[in-house]
């Protein structure tokens, strides 16, 4: 078994892209069912952690900007670490992530050991 990082991103700044209150309500259940489904397969590798929406970004000139980030466009909505055999299995989990229905995306990364 390997561990995979799943990062969900979506645009929090574009007013047109924001879900309606009904969509959000529906989305909460979808998220809980998605988490429950991963946990039911014993594939949740770490406890869940919530993250705030605002956040801050340090740019290359060390300047700090407050979120949501117009310049970055897509902010991190959250992340989880799951257990999966391979990318295929990890991606299958990601394909059911509710962020996709809100126009977002999921980045999948496999945990690796330092070489040598």
């Amino acid at each position: 078994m390997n561990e995979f990082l799943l990062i969900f991103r979506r645009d929090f700044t574009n007013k047109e892209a924001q879900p309606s209150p009904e969509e959000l309500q529906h989305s909460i259940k979808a998220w809980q069912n998605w988490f429950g489904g991963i946990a039911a397969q014993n594939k949740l590798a770490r406890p869940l952690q919530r993250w705030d929406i605002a956040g801050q970004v340090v740019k290359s000139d060390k300047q700090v900007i407050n979120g949501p980030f117009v310049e970055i466009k897509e902010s991190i909505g959250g992340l989880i670490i799951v257990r999966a055999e391979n990318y295929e299995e990890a991606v299958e989990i990601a394909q059911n992530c509710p962020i996709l229905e809100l126009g977002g995306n999921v980045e999948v990364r496999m945990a690796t050991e330092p070489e040598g």
Partner: protein
Amino acid sequence: MEQHELIPNLFRNEYRKIVCVLCRLFGIAHVETAEDIVSDTFLAATEIWSARGVPENPTAWLYTVAKNKTKNYLKRDSLFQQKLSPELQYQAEKMEEFELDLSIKNIGDSQLAMIFTICNPQISTESQVALALNLLCGFGIQEIADAYLTNKEVIYKRLKRAKDRLKAVNMKIEQPGLTEISLRMDTVLTTLYLLFSEGYYSTAQNTTLRKDFCAEAMRLVYLLADQETTNLPEVNALLSLMCFHVSRFDTRATPEGEAILYGDQDESLWNQELIAQGKYYLGLSASGSRLTKYHLEAGIAYWHTHKADTTEKWQQILQLYNNLLVLEYSPIVALNRMFALAKVEGKVTAIAEAEKLKLTGNHFYYSLLGNLYTDVDDALALQHYKQALLLASSDADQLIISRHIRHLNG
């Protein structure tokens, strides 16, 4: 109550009280001495009562005899005396004034101290449960063996090992301070929860005994809820969970011992008083910031006391199962979640999710698939139930599965 019922109940009740007081007095190293003194007391009671009849106040009679036997033991056995604490030795020297304190307060304090002594991560969970049944609840070795569907020898050895281990780590029997409580409460609750489950889910036929296990587990949790220092939200949550479960105890099986599935239970027989108590403790559990599995399980049990199949009910149960699994994975919870998912999202969605579980060594997994495929694809349902039957080992489980197979074939 008939006399033949009175005596075992009285003995069990008083056994655990006197043993705890004596253990706390002597220290865990002398647990067998404590047990011997109580057994001697009961032996004397059985002999004298059968000749002269049961005294008017049997408890007081037992306490007087236990006090005398303790005093005699301390007086007679100087070797034993030397092993005791200096404080107790000093008391024992002034023997005429020494009296075993069997007041309600000291009994309560001693039992609480013993709960924290026995529910000790340094001994195996299995041993903790056996010791709790024996010393905290007063069940005899035969009764414990009956519940575990095993023989006396196995239980005797398990208890002996557990006691030796407690002696080896020289566990002190004392009132737990706030630090011990915060460090050890999880272990205590796990053991009491298992003790309760032993009664609630055991496949043993002896219903009276199983109910007694549940009642004893609840009594110990009440004891925790009754003390200010141990009256924590998770204690109330566990108590609430137990109340909700026990409210349906009698409706889960026919008088012949055949299981009745939830959907077929007669809700008019559910104990409303216990349901009300469960709600009361659930309310008390809703404080602090820690959400434990007992909170979530109490919530699930609460919704199960609503018989009507509403959308809200199954939505709530599904969310509670989701949270429970995120908190702590368990195959049985994963399987139970699928029943709720089927109610909310329909059987086809649930089948797709259930097949991802791949719990292929578990007969409940195949029973779940059998249930979900029924009316969707009966041939597949039958195939899954047959696989479940191959894997199930207990008579009760095989009976339920066979019933489903008959139903599908009929």
